[in-house]
Structure formats: C-alpha cells, structure tokens
C-alpha cells in the first residue's frame, strides 16, 4: 500500500511538472495580459496585434515547426527585441506578485496553506521570468527540451527523497548531551541501545483556584512552564479548552474537576501536568 502511494505521488508530481511547463507560456501571457489591462489600453495593444519591431509571437494558428524554422533562417537579423511595453508589463506583474506573496504571508494562514500559496506565487513569478525575460516563449525547441528535462529530474529527485523520508518514523534520542533524531519502528520506538528523549516542557506550577467549588463557581487554571515552545494548552475534564471553567448542575458533588496543562518543547516533544478542584455542596446562606 505504501509503495503504491509512493508510486502515485511520484507520477502525480511528474504530471504537475509537465503541466507546469506546458502551461508556462500561457500563465505568462495571462499575467501580462491582466497587468496590461491595469496599465491601460495602449500597452494592452501589443497582445492584440504585432507591431513592427516586436517578436511577440501569435499563439493562435502557429506555422508547422519546419516552416517556422525556415522563416527564422530567412530573417536577416536573428531576432528583433520585444517591445518595451512587454518588458515593463512583465516587470509590473512580477512586482504585483511580490506584493501579493508578502500580503498573503501577513494573513496568518495555516502553515500548509501558507506554503502552498507561497510556492504557487513563486512559480507564477518564475514562469514570467523564464517565458519572457529568458525568451523561452518563442525560443528554440532545444531550450524547452533542456528546461523540461531539468525539471523532470528535479521532480524525480524531490519526489524520491520525500517519499523515502515520509514513509519512515523518527524519534528523538539522547546521545550524551545532544538530542539526535534516530529512525524508529512503526510504533515510534527506538532500537535497543538508544534512550528516548525525555523532553517536553517542564511545568513549574499548575494551579486551579478555588480548590473547592459548587454550582455557579468559575474555576481558573493557571500554569507556568520552562522550555516551552508556543502556548500552554488548558484542557478540562469535560474536554473543553480554556483557562476558565463554569461549574454547573451537571457536575455532581464529590467529583474532581481536573485541568490538564500541556505544551511542546523545541523538539515538539509533548509534556503535561494536572491540577484539580473538588465539587462540594453549596453552603447554606447564613
């Protein structure tokens, strides 16, 4: 099953890579088009008709390869430079995408979404630079061949390494004064001879106040910790999270209401500690 998954991941990544390079000029053209609309009609015109002195090639109805080659050779000058608007348009699109990627990073997204969007924007920027500044769009097919072969092997390299790493289990082990990452078995146990990292944050104090409670009391849990990376999580015996807990009639007299504090250390090893308060009968008014 794992092998099947690896094979699927590899093929998926290769397919994405190939699509990326097939779509590369289209992505470039779309972004340039969008930016030109923002800039105005005048700079947009270069996409609609070929002006003299430009090599912006028409995408629609391209001549057969052999004919295109012949035409290239007939040209007195090997290639005329692209129009100024094209370059400024690409540059503007690159700046817009830079602003976009910094803006997205400010949103505070979930990490894996942030990674996804950062890489999507970076790929779009790379497509623009490769297609327009490096003249791969409309350039010789040998260039495209070299580029796609490189991309293919890059993807194979990434996919193979990650499918290897991703299908192993690691655990932190103590080696002298150092903590090292060792390969563990599927249950996360280290091989014999290795002592597991006894890490996790140290909770120097955990307290629930008041110590006795009855219906209507609000309990407050407080804790201090050292070696903690991130926030302390407070979890009550009924499963709710937060620093406070309201005692209700569903908490029978005599039960202990516990507050479990937990957190991760810098190696993401978890540690926790517990404190509790007892539910007592509500005192009679005096």
């Amino acid at each position: 099953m794992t092998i099947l998954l690896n094979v699927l991941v590899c093929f998926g990544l290769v397919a994405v890579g190939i699509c990326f390079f097939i779509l590369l000029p289209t992505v470039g053209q779309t972004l340039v088009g969008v930016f030109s609309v923002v800039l105005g009609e005048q700079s947009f015109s270069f996409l609609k008709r070929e002006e003299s002195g430009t090599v912006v090639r028409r995408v629609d109805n391209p001549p057969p390869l052999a004919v295109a080659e012949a035409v290239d050779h007939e040209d007195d000058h090997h290639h005329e430079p692209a129009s100024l608007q094209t370059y400024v348009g690409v540059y503007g699109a690159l700046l817009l995408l830079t602003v976009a990627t910094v803006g997205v990073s400010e949103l505070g997204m979930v990490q894996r979404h942030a990674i996804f969007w950062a890489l999507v924007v970076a790929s779009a920027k790379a497509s623009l630079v490769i297609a327009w500044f490096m003249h791969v769009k409309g350039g010789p097919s040998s260039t495209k061949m070299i580029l796609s072969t490189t991309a293919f092997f890059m993807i194979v390299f990434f996919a193979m390494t990650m499918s290897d790493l991703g299908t192993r289990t690691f655990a932190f082990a103590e080696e002298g004064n150092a903590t090292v990452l060792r390969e563990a078995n599927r249950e996360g146990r280290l091989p014999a001879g290795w002592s597991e990292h006894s890490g996790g944050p140290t909770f120097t104090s955990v307290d629930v106040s008041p110590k006795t409670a009855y219906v209507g009391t609000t309990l407050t849990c407080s804790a201090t910790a050292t070696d903690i990376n991130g926030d302390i999580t407070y979890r009550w015996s009924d499963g709710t999270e937060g620093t406070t807990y309201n005692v209700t009639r569903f908490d029978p007299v005599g039960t202990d209401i516990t507050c479990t504090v937990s957190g991760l250390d810098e190696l993401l090893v978890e540690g926790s500690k517990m404190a509790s308060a007892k539910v007592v009968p509500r005192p009679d008014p005096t």
Partner: protein
Amino acid sequence: MGATHHATDQPEWVASFFESAEQQRSAASMGMWLFLAQEILFFSGLFMAYIAYRFLYPGTWLSGAEVLNKWMGAANTVVLLTSSLTMVLAIRDLQLNKTASSVRWIWATVGLAGVFLVVKAFEYAHKFHMGIFPGGHYEGGAVEGMAGIFFGIYYTATGLHALHVIIGMGLLGWLAVKVKNGSVTGENDVLAENLGLYWHLVDLVWIFLFPMLYLVK
C-alpha cells in the same frame, strides 16, 4: 545570412569551425542553457536539504523564520526584479544598436546587484551580532531547537546565491567594457544574451529562496 555562406563570407567574430553566425549563436546559447540546467540541479540540492530538514524539525523552522527580516527580504526581491528588467533593457538597446544606452543599463544592473549585496550584508551583520552563526558555531539564544541546522542551510543557500551575484557583477562589468569598445554589438550579441540568462537565473533562485526562508512560517 543563410546557412549556405562560405566561411570566408562570415564576419571575423564567427569562428572558422562554424558554418554560419546563426550556427555559432545557437551553439553558444544551447551551451549556456546546459550550464543553467546544471545550476538549477545544483540549487535543487540546497532546496532539498531545506525541505528534508524542515520535515524533520518543523518547530525549529517556525522559530528560525521569525528571526529573518521579511521586509529586508522583500526589498531585495524588488531590487533583483528591477535588475532583471534593466538587464533585458540593456540587451534590447544593444539589439537596436543604441550602444551608449545599453552600456548605461548594464551598469544600472551592476549597481542594483551592489544594492542587493549591501542589504544582504546588513542582514548578515545583524545576525552575527545576535550570535547567529551556522552549524555548531551557533551561539544565539533566539531560536529554539536545531537552530544550527536551520541557519547552516540559510547561510549556505543565501551565501551561494550572493556568490553568484558577485560573479555576475564581475561578468556584467566585463560585458559593459566589451559593449563600449565594440567587441559585442547588436549583430554579435550572444555574450550579452548568455550573461542575461545567467542574471535571470540568479533572480529565479531568489524568487524561490525569498518565500521559503522569509515568508513561510
């Protein structure tokens, strides 16, 4: 000029073993692309190290990225993108036979490369001041966990990229001299095009380094 011309009809800058200027140009261009392919695979080794260690030490990567200054990184991105624009404009003007303006654009590119390095130097100086050195030399307390590995990868990736920028500055300065004295012209511009390709590759590497190191946390 067609492929049927004899070697004697060629301009003196076409080597005797090429049939035509066009053949010389496509050979040089293909050679440059093969070099760029090698560069891409070389940098993907660094990106792979980043991905693999991020996978193993996610906590370190989170707190490590907090130390990096996103705004300096963003400023350097804009500087490099602008230098890519000045580079294409230099080649455009060269091909339009506007030599003087082409030389100016090349020097503008060199200048922007210098700005990039100055910003980078400030970033490095700030980290050295905090005791953030690569690998086992790490002595800051700012980052939890395997900070030595994170900053080892940070310094290797950005340092090798900066080395490419320094080499690029030297090559572009040499190009500016060659354009000025007429040994690189609009007709014989393959050196300018190839150095342009190199410069855009330096930009491409930074386009990926910037979000991976500074933004994703």
